[in-house]
């Protein structure tokens, strides 16, 4: 595993950087929420974006996956500019976005939700394998294949949304508030799973969290956002230990 690095002022793109964001400006209507975001996530690492409510964390993920059109700036995924790429094409480029509230389609069954995650793939055999792997990874889902999405518990929905993203074998996983509304034990399990996926499959994760402690505990890089800007990006360990920064932006 490579060492995490700080890259706030760094303008050069190395081949190992899976996601590079430069000067991203985006928002809803006239006033942009995001003001010139710079961000780099090396391949095979976990980056945690933390910050208070309204810092623009969710907006950042929505801008990255094209749900809102950036006003200015550049998003590079493995060196390819994503500008103008329709949302539904991003999953084909290797980006999976698990939205806030997790987006389980409650009218569809567990199995249908999961299969939907792999429908776009041409390699049908591998899509089938990925589905089986997800059922192995999340045993409770295998027992509830025919249940509808709205019959699941919060933790099971979490598994389903995450599993559905994994069926597409993404290179980059965008996770919006995976801990929202979940019991601490479930949160800990999810975080441990992300770490396990990073180590075993080289998955790159950009997760947005209010639960700063658990996010920084597993992340390689911590990105602190405040009022639509990146205040600092540093190795997660440094952020955990920086008392002043924690007091100023993270509130603990």
């Amino acid at each position: 595993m490579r060492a995490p690095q700080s890259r706030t002022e760094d303008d050069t793109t190395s081949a190992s950087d899976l996601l590079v964001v430069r000067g991203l400006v985006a928002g809803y209507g006239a006033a942009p929420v995001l003001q010139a975001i710079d961000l780099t996530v090396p391949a095979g690492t976990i980056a945690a974006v933390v910050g208070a409510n309204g810092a623009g964390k969710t907006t950042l993920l929505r801008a990255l996956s094209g749900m809102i059109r950036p006003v200015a700036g550049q998003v590079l995924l493995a060196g390819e500019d994503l500008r103008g790429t329709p949302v539904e094409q991003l999953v084909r480029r290797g980006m999976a976005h698990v939205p806030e509230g997790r987006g389980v389609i409650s009218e569809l069954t567990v199995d249908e939700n999961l299969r939907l995650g792999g429908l776009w793939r041409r390699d049908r055999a591998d899509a089938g394998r990925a589905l089986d792997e997800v059922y192995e990874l999340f045993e409770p889902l295998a027992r509830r294949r025919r249940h509808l999405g709205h019959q699941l518990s919060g933790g099971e929905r979490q598994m389903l949304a995450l599993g559905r993203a994994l069926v597409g074998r993404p290179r980059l996983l965008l996770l919006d508030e995976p801990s929202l509304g979940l019991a601490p034990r479930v949160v800990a399990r999810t975080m441990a799973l992300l770490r396990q996926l990073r180590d075993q499959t080289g998955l790159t994760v950009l997760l947005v969290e209010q639960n700063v402690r658990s996010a920084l505990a597993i992340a390689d890089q911590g990105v602190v956002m405040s009022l639509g800007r990146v205040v600092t990006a540093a190795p997660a360990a440094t952020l955990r230990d920086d008392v002043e920064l924690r007091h100023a932006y993270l509130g603990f």
Partner: protein
Amino acid sequence: MDRFVFLTIDGLSRGAVYAAFALALVLIWRAARVVNFAQGAMAVAAAYVAYTVSAETGSYWLGFVVAIVAGLLLGALVDRAVMRFVDHTSPLNPVIVALGLVLLIQAVLGMVYGSEFRPAEAPFSRSALSVGGVAVLSPYDLFVFAAIGVVVSGLAWMFARTPVGLRMRAAAFAPEVSRLLGVNVGGMLTLGWALASGVGALAAMLVIPTELGLHPHAMDLVFVSAFTAAVVGGLDSPPGAVVGGLVVGLLLSYVSGYAGSDLTPLAVLVLLLAVLLVRPGGLFAPVAARRV
């Protein structure tokens, strides 16, 4: 008793057509949250295309196939060229645009074909076969049941079992999430419009020979009945639309047989009113899923 059997069969035959037409309304409602008031006019337009083709070639079946294809294309066109540009924030906007389409399509048909009734041929005999002295079923009724049975079960299979059906359902329930999962939501919407309009065209082809003939307004009353059927079924439920269609068909058949055919339009409206008053969610309203 003979009369009752005859009216029942006749009601089910008409009801099958209403069921198909109601199903088309439900397909669009589920996909786009639009009640397509233009569906009757669109279906008549497809039937006129079939009329022209059949008149030119002398083949009923060629016209029949062309009508379905024309219906599919017209549905896709209405979505891509009209509905896509309508602001859906108020449900009234697409309704008014759809009503505008009705006027447009009927006016164009009137200009091209004139507004006299044109005879529409039935491919099979409409005189009922007798079983044990009781007139039961005409070959044409059998054709109607078979055609609609095939289409309804085909659609049910497609939605429940095929990848494209799964995509269409997902796109209808959760468009944003579906896009994130790589579903071309706009394409699914167009496909939904096309399928619904194709089913509408089939229904028009089946029902017009049983009425006065081809006319720009030929489907107006059928639309009212089918809309009632869809509301009876809950507007959101495909099985509900099918059952609703059969219920409306039977009701109209009994009313016209026992009370006089003048009363049928009134009976439809009374049923519509009763359902909206007593059970506005329809008889098949699903338990509302809690959004979390």
